[in-house]
């Protein structure tokens, strides 16, 4: 009996080890399929319901452990839809959003994105997926000829010549030098870099390291990459504390960012702390609680935004949902207005026409930033330097590309 048990056990462990070696997964045990798409066709009173709507796909996480991201994104997109339709729609037609749940795995993300791209009459798709996920579906967006707007920021995707891909945020290539400059102002000369090892984390860490190398007298004390399913950061923080680092630059997604903040606090680390945009996200701050206070971040979004469009968005969002908007909300919101602007300039919802005029976007005021075509299919132009105080990102400065 024991030999049989041992055989079964060894087989299971070897199989799991093979899975570990084959690549990182978001969650090794969850294989939820995407939900059936739900169509919300409610429109405001200003648009005639008999008119054919303009359909936009939104691919986001509506189930699983990251569903909080999707909830914020959906709220942002819905707020934009409500405002647009109440103001007469786009070219007199109501905006309709088709949601696809990308689940928790890369496979389910691809399934959801392809479903959105192949839906009838969808003129564009927005997704707040991770860079590594979006990268997988860009060949499909190219094949279908549908503009695919990403809420991600990995510059590597801009270098791959996908003409139907549009990056809403300022790319990491431009954020990283600004982040390093801010670190210098915090007194860092020998910071350690702790980053996630996916496309986003590695790409941004490379740019940060490059920017550090360009500053005289500044060096990298340690660079530690961890998988995107890592939850225990104490061994890495221990190594950083023993590396003569005089500060920490951390690049993670929201859940990991929360854990890093919690574990830095648990270890009573008293160093200047700089995080990527995710460290100022509402999701990370909600999870990390008081331990988020004190962290600096180069954030795409803060509710303390100083632009009129941004302030109006915050007020409308609070009124609609009784909570503060997250970065996921504002990127989804702005993407709907970006498409509205493009469709109106194109004079139709033909995907090719929209794609063409997206490349002519100039000085479009959004809630997050002002959008201007940058020559590399990125549209964002600014980013905020914030410090988390009393569980909110306090605006410390604005960095322009």
């Amino acid at each position, binding site marked *: 009996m*024991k030999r049989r048990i041992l055989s079964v056990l060894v087989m299971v462990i070897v199989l799991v080890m093979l899975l570990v070696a084959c690549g990182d997964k978001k969650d090794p*045990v969850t294989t939820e399929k995407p939900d059936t798409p739900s169509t919300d066709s409610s429109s405001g009173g200003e648009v005639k319901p008999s008119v054919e709507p303009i359909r936009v796909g939104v691919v986001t996480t509506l189930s699983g*452990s990251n569903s909080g991201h999707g909830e914020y994104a959906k709220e942002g997109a819905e707020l934009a839809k409500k405002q647009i339709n109440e103001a007469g729609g786009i070219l007199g037609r109501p905006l309709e959003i088709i949601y696809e749940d990308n689940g928790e795995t890369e496979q389910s993300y691809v399934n959801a994105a392809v479903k959105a791209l192949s839906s009838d009459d969808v003129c564009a798709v927005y997704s707040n997926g991770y860079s590594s996920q979006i990268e997988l579906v860009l060949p499909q967006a190219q094949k279908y000829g549908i503009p695919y707007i990403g809420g991600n920021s990995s510059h590597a995707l801009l270098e791959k010549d996908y003409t139907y891909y549009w990056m809403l945020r300022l790319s990491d290539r431009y954020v990283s030098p600004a982040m390093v400059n801010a670190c210098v102002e915090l007194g860092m000369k020998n910071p350690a870099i702790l980053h996630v*090892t996916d496309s986003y984390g590695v790409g941004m860490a490379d740019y940060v390291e490059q920017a550090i190398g360009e500053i005289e007298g500044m060096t990298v004390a340690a660079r530690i990459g961890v998988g995107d399913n890592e939850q*225990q950061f104490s*061994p890495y923080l*221990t*190594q950083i504390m023993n590396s003569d680092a005089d500060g920490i630059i951390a690049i993670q997604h929201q859940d990991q960012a929360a854990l890093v903040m919690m574990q830095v606090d648990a270890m009573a680390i008293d160093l200047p702390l700089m995080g990527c945009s995710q460290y100022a996200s509402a999701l990370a701050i909600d999870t990390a609680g008081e331990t988020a206070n004190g962290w600096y971040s180069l954030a795409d979004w803060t509710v303390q935004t100083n632009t009129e469009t941004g302030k109006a968005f915050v007020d409308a969002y609070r009124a609609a949902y009784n909570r503060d908007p997250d970065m996921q909300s504002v990127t989804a919101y702005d993407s709907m207005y970006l498409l509205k602007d493009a469709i109106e300039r194109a004079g139709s919802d033909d995907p090719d026409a929209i794609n063409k005029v997206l490349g002519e976007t100039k000085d479009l005021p959004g809630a997050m930033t002002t959008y201007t075509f940058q020559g590399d299919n990125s549209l964002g132009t600014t980013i905020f330097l914030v410090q988390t105080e009393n569980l909110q990102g306090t605006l410390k400065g604005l960095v322009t590309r």
Partner: protein
Amino acid sequence: MNIGLYLQLLVIGLSMGMIYAILAMGIVLLVRAVGVLNFAQGELFMLGAYVCYALTVQLHMPIYVMLIVALLIFVLFGTLFMFAVYWPLRNSKWPATIIISTLGASVVLKEVVKLIWGSVPVVQPPIIKGVLVLWGNVRIEYQYLFIIGIGSLLITAVFLLFDKLFLGRAMQAAAQDSYAAQLLGIPTIVTTALTYIISASLVGVGGWLVSPLFLVSTSLGSFLLKGFAGMVIGGLGDVKGAVIGSLLVGVIESFATLFTATYKDAVVFSVLIIVLIVRPTGFFGQKISEKV
């Protein structure tokens, strides 16, 4: 040579090893008692974390009250688990039946937890806050020392139960030969239920210990793999081997981060394979001959 760094990594590794040891002990107890590998052990561990989260954060119970209530819940759950997953299938002619039953139970537990607490991870506050500063940057979190302390107590208690107490000997006797034990007046249904209760309570407490270090989520169930690895390295069916093997896994995992962060799990399982090649029965396992 940075002694401070190695000392800190050793403490972190030993504390995580304690968690794996608690998991592995729970598995070994069931293997010895009923000859079944419980693949739902990781989910019982996860459930322990969620139950303690609910009692502490949602119901605001003080720690002493919480521990008593949690232990009662683990006792109840261990009993329910045995009667739902093992007892109806104990006489099945196909040995894998109960293993598959435990696999099914692991899925059910995970989904039930998602239904109750949702799929978004939740946060359990630290049981003990603060760090012990030894010198310079050498600092050890009290939380890790607490895990080592409680883990040692639990391990000692299990050893005492089986080596010194009549109850433990009766449980071992029933596990080795239930027919002979019944002839001697030992009620096997009680000893089996006790084994399930002890196993569920052990991993439940393990879940509570580890929950402040991680986000409380369904992914905590994946800790089971390290417990399995520790058990196999130590020797299947041997409690002492499971403890030592698990501590080894924790320490290897911790020191592996010096060389690789992404593939530290692969390092652990590579060691497992090497041990199996060199010593297939594990460090403390004995060669078992199949009886005809």
